[in-house]
């Protein structure tokens, strides 16, 4: 019998608040972090994105430390980890995982050896690890848009292999000229806040955030148990998802098999929902293939935009709150069904007894990840 692995502490730093409670308050009120921005250093034309106010970050960070020089992303990662690291003793069996897609990519604007060093994801991980005094080698997960959920799955597996007893996982990405121009070149950016699964969607809104969780084999203070997980590739196309949702279907099946449950046990799906037609359609097909077409589903991208390497972990943090508060949050931005296979989109925030949820993500490279969580009673 494999060890049970839990999540006990969670936190997040987003435009909707610098702690979980404030985020949940704002989500409940239907407030979005996505706004129209005019910032020529990021993009020539105006654009929609969910951006954390830099002065707020600096102000909060000053309360943590006045030492050292850190980038905005690093400050946000430290702020996310800070309250949860303080509660646990760090040992040489404590892992540190960092999830990101582009890290400090903005350093590349300067062409020097130093800035290349700065842009290395290992450098970022080392800085955060040193700040907290983690004793083990940092593990950076960089697997496109599934990174944040995948990092939880990796932490769980490493604890099950008995390599570690517990793992701090932090995830983050920021809105940079680099990713804005890239998504724009894919003609994938929406000029209004994104509308996942909606007929009237016009594409992705990018966002920035950090999130942190403690994954542990210690049941004390545990909020959820991680029942099963899977990360299976579409083997179809490097930028477009599979039309049949094959990789996602197999990832969910792999997670359900390990969890030893069927689709009826899943009370809620926190989906990827980027609001691009191909992604949303693929997910709807995958969910209905697996018998999850009636299960309440939302995408949190309407609140936060697509926060890339942070999104999976951030959405798990919020999903756990759904279980704890027995609350289904509305899939913000949705109006009319815009996918060919009907799925049960949560249109209004409502109370409902919840026990178990499925988190999924899909991304470039044909990657997919599914993880199932159950509430500790």
């Amino acid at each position, binding site marked *: 019998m494999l060890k049970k692995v839990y999540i006990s502490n969670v936190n997040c730093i987003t435009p909707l608040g610098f702690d979980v409670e404030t985020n949940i308050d704002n989500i409940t009120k239907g407030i979005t972090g996505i706004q129209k921005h005019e910032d020529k250093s990021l993009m020539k034309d105006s654009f929609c994105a969910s951006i954390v106010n830099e002065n707020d970050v600096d102000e909060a960070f000053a309360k943590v430390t006045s030492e050292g020089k850190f980038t905005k992303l690093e400050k946000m990662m430290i702020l996310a980890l800070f309250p949860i690291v303080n509660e646990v003793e760090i040992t040489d069996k404590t892992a540190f995982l960092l999830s990101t897609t582009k890290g400090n990519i903005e350093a590349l604007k300067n062409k020097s050896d130093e800035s290349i060093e700065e842009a290395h994801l290992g450098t970022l991980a080392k800085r955060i690890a040193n700040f907290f005094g983690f004793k083990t080698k940092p593990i950076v997960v960089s697997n496109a848009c599934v990174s944040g959920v995948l990092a939880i799955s990796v932490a769980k597996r490493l604890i099950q292999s008995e390599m570690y007893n517990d793992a701090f996982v932090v995830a983050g990405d920021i809105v940079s000229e680099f990713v804005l121009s890239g998504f724009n*070149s*894919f*003609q994938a950016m929406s000029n209004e806040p994104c509308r996942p699964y909606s007929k009237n969607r016009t594409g992705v809104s990018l966002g920035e955030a950090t999130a942190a969780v403690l994954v542990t084999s210690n049941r004390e203070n545990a909020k959820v148990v991680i029942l099963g997980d899977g990360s299976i590739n579409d083997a179809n*196309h*490097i*930028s*477009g998802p599979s039309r049949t949702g094959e990789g996602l279907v197999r990832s969910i099946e792999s997670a359900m098999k390990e969890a030893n449950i069927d689709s009826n046990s899943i009370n809620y799906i926190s989906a990827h929902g980027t609001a691009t037609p191909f992604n949303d359609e693929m997910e709807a097909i995958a969910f209905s293939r697996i018998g999850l077409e009636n299960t309440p589903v939302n995408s949190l991208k309407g609140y936060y935009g697509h926060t890339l390497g942070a999104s999976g972990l951030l959405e798990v943090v919020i999903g756990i709150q759904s279980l704890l508060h027995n609350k289904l949050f509305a899939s913000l931005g949705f109006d009319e069904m815009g996918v060919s296979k009907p799925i049960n989109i949560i249109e209004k925030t409502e109370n409902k007894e919840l026990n178990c949820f499925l988190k999924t993500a899909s991304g470039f490279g044909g990657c997919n990840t599914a993880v199932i969580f159950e509430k500790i009673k």
Partner: protein
Amino acid sequence: MEALKQELKEKIIEVLNLEDINVADINDNDPLFGDGLGLDSIDALELIVLLDKEYGIKLLDPKLGKTIFESIETMAAYITEHRTK
């Protein structure tokens, strides 16, 4: 028009890294996508960049690409009519 078509073939081979294909292999009316040159969705986006970069044509609706990029013939005709450089 003939010169433009020749130029387009060269540029497409270059920007889309069609290493195994020569200018002589591409006929003016061959379909570029699907069974023809076997281009895919990223190539289509790259052709939109090519129109902008080389001919000053901004394609605001990417769906238009479907008809414009049907063949070298249709592409050349569209560029001739809309080019700003």
